């Protein structure tokens, strides 16, 4: 069709045709170039990290402690710390995110100002820089809640009023809340109206409908949200910089009031504050590789589940 148009155009304005054709090719070429550039950068990053990190990457690396002033050994405690972080984070964020999404899709009326405000704040939460969450965690969780709890229950003895896993996880939960809300909301919207109406027509109340019909139908959506949130939480470093991540710990964290090591933070300090950056280069690349494998594979799983939900909706 394109061709036909151009040809007929050329018939009347033959001088115009060629310039417009060339211009068109340049423009389209530019857009193609942009896509190719972005995708190739992405693969270059992947390739470099895989290539540089593969020599050190092994089971032993994953399952052993760092030794010799963190210039040798593995990343086991960082990995475990990251796991604990995302688990506690999910426990906090998933129920809240799901319920908020439920409110937005099931209860909020179309023109409700309140719902609009909730939506706006969710989107704002999604764009607030992650470092601000770190500051908030420090100001609210640690200084306000933690220190307050210490004076109230511990007689001023320092336990919660310092950086630890709990506060870091809660900070991270706030950061990942919008991710969960958006995914669950999307999943809830794909549940056909007819199902809800059928349930209501059978005499079920709204809450019963939600519990028996809507929620079971959106399990995969909640899962997608959780996975995406975990992937995000595993990779973010800024919020935990001063809410709980530790440079080096000889033991695994034993309770929620302990500090923890974290993969992303490990990469950061190893590459900027290590005593011998050159020597630990393979470790750094391998750690980055582990982190990347973790976040990307989680993301791929989420994308697959999500595309399934979408297909089902169609």
């Amino acid at each position, binding site marked *: 069709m394109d061709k036909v148009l151009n040809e007929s155009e050329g018939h009347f304005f033959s001088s115009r045709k060629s310039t417009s054709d060339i211009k068109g090719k340049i423009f389209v070429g530019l*857009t193609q170039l942009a896509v190719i550039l972005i995708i190739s950068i992405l693969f270059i990053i992947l390739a470099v990290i895989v290539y540089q990190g593969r020599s050190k990457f092994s089971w032993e690396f994953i399952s052993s402690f760092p030794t010799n002033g963190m210039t040798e050994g593995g990343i086991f405690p960082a990995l475990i710390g990251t796991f604990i972080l995302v688990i506690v984070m999910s426990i906090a964020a998933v129920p809240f995110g799901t*319920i908020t999404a439920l409110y937005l899709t099931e209860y909020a009326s179309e023109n409700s100002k309140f719902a609009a405000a909730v939506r706006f704040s969710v989107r704002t939460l999604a764009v607030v820089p992650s470092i601000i969450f*770190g*500051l908030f965690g420090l100001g609210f969780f640690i200084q306000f809640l933690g220190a307050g709890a210490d004076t109230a229950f511990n007689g001023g003895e320092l336990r919660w*009023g310092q950086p630890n896993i709990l506060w870091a996880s809660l900070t991270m939960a706030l950061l990942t809340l919008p991710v969960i809300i958006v995914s669950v909301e999307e999943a809830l919207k794909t549940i056909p109206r007819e199902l809800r109406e059928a349930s209501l027509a059978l005499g079920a109340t709204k809450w019963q409908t939600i519990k028996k019909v809507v929620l079971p139908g959106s399990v995969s959506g909640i899962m997608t949200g959780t996975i995406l949130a975990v992937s995000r939480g595993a990779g973010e470093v*800024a919020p935990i910089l*001063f809410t709980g991540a530790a440079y080096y710990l000889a033991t695994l964290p034993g309770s929620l009031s302990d500090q923890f090591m974290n993969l992303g933070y490990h990469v950061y300090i190893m590459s900027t504050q290590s005593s011998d950056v050159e020597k630990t280069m393979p470790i750094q690349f391998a750690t*980055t590789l582990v982190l990347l494998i973790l976040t*990307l594979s989680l993301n791929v799983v989420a994308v697959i589940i999500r595309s399934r939900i979408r297909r089902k909706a169609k």
Partner: protein
Amino acid sequence: MNSESPIKKTFTQESLKKQFRLSEFLAEKFISMIAFLSIAIIFLIFIFVFKESLPLFSFGSDAKAKTEAQATSANKPESYGTEPEGDLKPESYGTENAEDLKPESYGTETTKDLKPETYGSEPADDLKPEVYGDAPKEDLSVPAEDESVGAVSENQEGSDKTWNTFFTSEWVPVSENPRFGLLGLLIGTLKVTIIAMLIAGPLAVLAALFTSCFASKRVKEIIKPIIEMLAAFPSVVIGFFALMVLASFFQDVFGYDSRLNAFVGGVAMALAAIPIIYTISEDALAAVPKTYTEASLALGASKWQTAFFVVLPAATPGIFAALLLGVGRVFGETMIALMATGNAALVSANPFESVRTFAATIGAEMSETVFGDTHYSVLFFIGSLLFIFSFALNAVAEFYVKGKLLKKFQGK
């Protein structure tokens, strides 16, 4: 409502219904309450980030807010050792009426070594620095505290002085005479943001245009998830890549002096911003009604003419919003800035000089500050600026797009 229907067990059903109504009511209230939480979080973030920077504003007006802030902060872990009271306060002096001040700020000390007449003055009439200079020292010598307190208290200057240093270019937070020149940081942040947006903006928008206008359906289904996969790269990974690979590569190519600089940081941040800009502008382009495209094609325009002169202009508000959110992302990006920009607060227009951004400053220095210190407050103040900025960007993006796009596509 239909319980009136002629069923035999109306009675039991009715009573059942009442119970259900109560639980329904509770469920609904509970759910709305949780939903309200996300609004509350936004407020809490602002309040608590801003609260910690309040000591900076203690000149003149709100003594109440300050006392509140300090009351809650009195029991801080990081507050040096035995007596938090004495050294938490000093930032507040020099600013208010001496009567207010003394009981508050100098709690344990004797008030006689403070000269009321020097302190009592309003913030407006400038206090002479000399007066200031020795005031903290007197203060210092009185409480018997360990030497960390000494280091801290030296930084305790009046808010006026802190504010005066804000508009200079020197960022020397830890010294005898700390200066908090935000200018250098601002220029650094702007420089990185501009570089990143100059790279990310065109690339992402062009890629979005290709995806929505030129790509076949199959190609689209491959490209889109791949580019969006870039969003899954943790920023620390991108920062690490920039630090280890990009920095050396660019240095080889361009041959500049400082290995880590605004350009390297900008390129790395562009990588972080591309998926955001791409996704949102792709959505905006896809939302342009098909009738636009068809009308244009029917009038004899070619495919690319339609894409550039019809679809792109129609989606401008959405693309604008996408760019704004991209700016927000770059502006607040911490890890990449920390790792790849060199972290030196220089004032220069050269893109190949090291810079220090606002976010990186917070990230790098927060863990080294002492609670309640001026430095600590300044960092929180920068944090509130960042928060307000990203909030405003999001609000503009949201309302501008909603207003413009809806008007446009729904026929006014």
